[in-house]
């Protein structure tokens, strides 16, 4: 047997013996040189040195273990689960928050006349037609920003002199057309234009209409705001004076169809303006209406004034 062949055979034999040793079998009859090497091998084996698995085996094992784990227990899924739960909770809170906001009709405010309202009010239309007209004029590009539309009361007077105010509703019988205060058509859809446009298309379905403005004997309101959406009429007498009084009328049965999401921003801004001017506030029921009076006067005085209101 030639040397190379002999050497190869020795390597093969040794390898096979090592395999057997790894399986716990120890050969009995082998040549001395191989026995010496096997003995060294057994010493190393018994030393029980710690080693790590080969990288490819480790990766393979880890991959199989990860794949076999239930998907819900992986950190990624947990993160997703937590963020989903937080998102859902936030949505619910937001929803509740929006529903708990004060409605538009509870706190209507004075809107300064804008070119849009003037134009709108210049057209005499029957009530149903007015709604269509308003909805058609709520194109987003024509509407002012809500914050910008609320101006100090004094500027309202400056911009719209009472004589030039344009009447859009039939004048009440008790009111002298010559002395009639400006009536500002309130467009409650000035905040969320596109959304409100959709809502306003549904308004003709409402049966109620705003009540006719009540009047104080011998006095003419400095400003009148009619909110057809919430069926409220708002008048200001003695504007910007210590005697200023705000009268808000709404039908007693008017508790419906208030789009809180639409009026949220407007209401908030309007309330700020009101709190600066009104100190006392009373509500009385007269002429089938709920009438609220606000002013610096005492509550008793406000009640007395309220009793003098005439249709």
């Amino acid at each position, binding site marked *: 047997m030639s040397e190379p062949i002999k050497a190869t055979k020795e390597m093969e034999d040794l390898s096979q013996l090592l395999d057997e040793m790894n399986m716990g079998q120890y050969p009995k009859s082998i040549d001395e040189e191989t026995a010496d090497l096997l003995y060294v091998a057994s010493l190393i084996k018994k030393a029980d*040195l710690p080693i790590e698995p080969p990288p490819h085996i480790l990766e393979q094992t880890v991959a*199989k273990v990860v794949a076999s784990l239930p998907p819900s227990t*992986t950190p990624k899924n947990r993160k997703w689960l937590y963020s989903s739960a937080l998102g859902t909770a936030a949505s619910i809170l937001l929803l509740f928050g929006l529903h708990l906001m004060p409605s538009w009709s509870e706190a209507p405010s004075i809107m300064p006349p804008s070119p849009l309202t003037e134009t709108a009010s210049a057209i005499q239309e029957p009530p149903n037609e007015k709604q269509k007209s308003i909805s058609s004029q709520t194109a987003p590009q024509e509407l002012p920003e809500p914050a910008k539309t609320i101006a100090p009361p004094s500027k309202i007077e400056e911009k719209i002199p009472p004589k030039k105010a344009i009447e859009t509703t039939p004048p009440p019988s008790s009111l002298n057309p010559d002395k009639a205060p400006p009536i500002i058509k309130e467009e409650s859809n000035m905040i969320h234009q596109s959304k409100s446009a959709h809502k306003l298309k549904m308004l003709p379905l409402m049966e109620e209409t705003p009540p006719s403005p009540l009047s104080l004997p011998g006095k003419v309101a400095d400003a009148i705001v009619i909110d057809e959406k919430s069926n409220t009429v708002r008048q200001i007498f003695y504007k910007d004076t210590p005697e200023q009084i705000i009268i808000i009328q709404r039908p007693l049965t008017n508790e419906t169809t208030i789009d809180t999401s639409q009026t949220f921003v407007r209401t908030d801004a309007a309330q700020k303006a009101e709190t600066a001017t009104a100190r006392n506030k009373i509500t009385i029921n007269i002429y089938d209406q709920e009438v609220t009076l606000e002013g610096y006067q005492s509550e008793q005085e406000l009640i007395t004034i309220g009793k003098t209101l005439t249709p």
Partner: protein
Amino acid sequence: MLDEDKLIDKAQSGDRDALNELIRRYWQPVFRFASYKTGSPEDAQEITQETFIRVFRSLGNYHRTGAKFQTYLDQIALNLITDLWRKKKRSPSTVNLAEYQQAININDQPDYQAISRERRETIAMLLMELPDDQRQTVEYRLIAGLPVRETAIALGKSEAAIKMLQQRSLKKLRALLLEQGVLENYAER
């Protein structure tokens, strides 16, 4: 073992690093156990993988037993080996774990422990004197007990190269052991 408990918890939740670390720690004893009982490196490798899969899938049970992690691994491996034997209709159908542990853990025997530490340290030191490819061949072929094919894959060499490397490394180690006097001393015992 607090660190190990933390690792196990992390592994249970799918933390790949923790899984890596635990498998790195316990792969060798499980594979050696499986090799010893099956007599087949291929079966041993399959059983080792399946052992880890089952262990991490049922870690809740492990927490309830309160056993050592190694013991829990051995028990699962043992069940798998028994199943394998049943499938192959080989005997015995049951395995005595205590018998295996006694056979494998020679180092635990009192008369062996005295020389164990010194010998282990010497062998570890001498292994480090080998060229890298020879040392890795010894580690995978002898200490881990991998077959030639797996060792060749791990080291990126041919099977023939591995056979040559293992022969050279053993000759070199024998020479080193003789130089250190370890081989003579141990042979005398």
